[in-house]
């Protein structure tokens, strides 16, 4: 402890260098935090997907509808807990580029199947009483300034009403929030509203896909093949996957874009850290003769190693820690693009990786020159000056 002032002094003997080294590390780790957030966005919250929820979609493509009668058939299979369905509505608010997902579903049991989504019980009650009611994610509500009680018109790009109009009106009856990683930009409304109001020839009596909650997650494979064989050779064959598998597949469709971006950035990030580490190492190397003097004064090898490491660790921990913290603070303020990047969270695992990386940079930058300084003969080092 008594050597702290010594560490402090040697740290600031070149103020400019230390300051900018600190700043560079700060930026590097800020970037790291932001990158990992974007990476998790591209994996689309797959970490949250339940293994006990199965998606039953049309075998040819998810755009093909399934008969609503499948619900009762699915429900009768032993091992099935709840069955509900979703229908993609493709609603547009004001401008087609204001993209968000609009889904017609059954409020109950859909929301109770997703315990990670939180919605006040009285809003669920209000929804049950209002056929034109809709529940939206808090992020989406923030984006358009919607409040409970607002009447929101959406243009139906797929479905028209019986009178031929494509203007659909909804009452916002509730806002849902959720655990980190939940997509809070969704727009949900009642399927019975859609099914009763939609015009002829738009698939009355059909739904988009089914979500099935099973009692035993370990049986998901068997259950999936049971479902698919039930509807085999019918006019609407199905393909069942776990929700996790489905989202994973969906993320893979977006594909390389995310992974390529991340790969480039990670490569560059490591180069920057390498360069910064080199600068820090250089700062120690310059002082070899000084370290030799310390050794002459009787400082042990171990103590010198500790002093040098303390110095490099200080820079890494302060710069990197601050960077990670600021990244975390930015991310927790929410998605800056207004809904394009969702979910927008910095996963805890990546935070831990970041902390590990900070320690690695600190040690690597200090260790090599410090061991060099430790091994050097005092006489040689002093002569160098």
């Amino acid at each position, binding site marked *: 402890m008594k050597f702290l002032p010594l560490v402090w002094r040697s740290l600031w003997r070149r103020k400019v260098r230390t300051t900018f080294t600190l700043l560079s590390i700060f930026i590097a780790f800020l970037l790291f935090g932001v990158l990992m957030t974007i990476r998790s966005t591209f994996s689309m919250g797959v970490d949250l997907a339940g293994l006990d929820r199965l998606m039953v979609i049309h075998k040819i493509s998810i755009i093909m509808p399934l008969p609503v009668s499948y619900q009762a058939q699915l429900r009768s299979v032993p091992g099935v807990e709840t069955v509900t369905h979703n229908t993609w509505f493709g609603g547009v608010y004001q401008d087609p580029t204001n993209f968000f997902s609009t889904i017609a579903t059954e409020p109950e049991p859909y929301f109770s199947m997703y315990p990670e989504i939180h919605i006040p019980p009285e809003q669920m009650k209000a929804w049950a009483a209002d056929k034109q009611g809709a529940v939206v994610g808090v992020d989406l509500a923030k984006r358009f300034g919607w409040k409970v009680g607002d009447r929101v018109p959406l243009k139906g790009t797929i479905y028209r009403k019986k009178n031929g109009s494509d203007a659909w009106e909804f009452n916002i009856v509730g806002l849902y929030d959720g655990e980190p990683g939940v997509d809070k930009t969704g727009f949900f409304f009642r399927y019975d509203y859609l099914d009763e109001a939609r015009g002829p020839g738009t698939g009355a009596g059909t739904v988009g896909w089914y979500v099935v909650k099973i009692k035993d997650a370990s049986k998901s494979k068997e259950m999936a093949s049971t479902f698919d064989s039930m509807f085999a050779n019918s006019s609407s064959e199905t393909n069942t996957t776990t929700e996790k598998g489905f989202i994973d597949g969906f993320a893979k469709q977006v594909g390389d*874009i995310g992974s390529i971006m991340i790969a480039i950035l990670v490569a560059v990030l490591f180069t920057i850290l390498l360069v910064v580490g080199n600068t820090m190492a250089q700062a120690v190397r310059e002082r070899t003769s000084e370290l030799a003097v310390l050794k002459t004064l009787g400082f042990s090898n171990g103590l010198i190693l500790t002093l040098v490491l303390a110095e490099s660790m200080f820079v890494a921990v302060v710069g990197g820690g601050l960077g990670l913290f600021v990244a975390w603070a930015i991310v927790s303020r929410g998605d800056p693009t207004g809904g394009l990047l969702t979910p927008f969270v910095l996963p805890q695992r990546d935070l831990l990786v970041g902390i590990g990386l900070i320690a690695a940079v600190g040690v690597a930058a200090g260790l090599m020159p410090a061991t060099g300084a430790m091994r050097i003969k005092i006489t040689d080092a002093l002569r160098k000056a």
Partner: protein
Amino acid sequence: MSFFTQVFAVSWLSLRTIPQRLGSSAVAVVGIAGVVIVFVAVLSMAQGFYAAMTAAGSPDRAIVMRSGADDEMTSGIGGPEADIIKQAPGLRHEGALPLAAAELFVLIDLPKLSTGTPANVPMRGVDPASFGVREEAKLVEGRMLRFGTNEVVVGRAAARSYAGLTVGSEIKAGQNSWLVVGMFESRGSVAETEIWCDARFLQGAYRRGNSFQSVRARLESPQTYGQFKDWLTSNPQLNVSVRPELEYYMAQSVTLTRLIRSVGFAIALLMGIGAVFGAILTMYTAVSTRTREIATLRALGFNTASVLVSVLAESFGLAALGGALGGLIAYVGFNGYQTSTMNWQSFSQVAFAFAVTPGLLAQGLGYALVMGLIGGLLPAVRAARLPISSALREL
């Protein structure tokens, strides 16, 4: 010595002595090169996607969809309506046949070769006029599909990206199967990600009755667009919207292009700040190692401006080197790289190639120079302000 000769002489001196400061100069060069790589590579992805989408459009074509529909996927046009549309004025004709094609646009799940997971591959039901409408589509392997059968021709990018699309193979989809008889190319556009089959046959397979999703029209010239559009939109039997094809594809690419661009710019900005810190560090080191040299020059009568400019020139030189290096790496590493993603407007797959354009390279280099300028500014001022007498005494 004139002012400019002085400036030139001192700048040349500092540039020539860079090799003596290789280690610290590398910090600036590598930092800036890294930023330029990321900047150019990420934007070239957006550029490539945009290019693939817009290459599918032609100024003398228009797309007719149900009014209110923003893309083919959600549009719907009945068979009788399609027949009316084909009678519109302003259309180009091939003999007696109007060059307007009533088409269907659906998705089919096929495994992506790179991951083995299912992907939404777009399948287009075409009519005999479709190939006349799209002159750029050329068969490169096999033969043309025969109408009235389950034969299909596949785009080159689709054949490369998804399983089971080689000429001669059979695609199973539910209770239908399709026979691949040919492969076509189309200026590297999004059309090459599609599978084309007979629209009539697809109507049966997807239970679409006698309905289509869009009519693709080839006009006599881009000038007849107004005439064509007015006739359709004022026809009481029709409820359709007409758009120039180019505009349609541009709108289709907006969401993803904007997402990639904004992520790219944000990251490049953040990294740029980091690189500027690196450059400042490098230039301060350069100035401090040359303290005596600079002081000597000043003692000899060189003015402060020439010292200032020389430091900036060095910083500029390093930045230019970093920018060029980064641009080169981005070009070699990414130009033409084939990938595919999902288009958010229609949830269908789009295969495209990264496009590192000269414009992007110039932007990257420009950004590098800006970073160099900012990075060199403070150290340059410091060098110019060095007190001669004490600086000469420094080690």
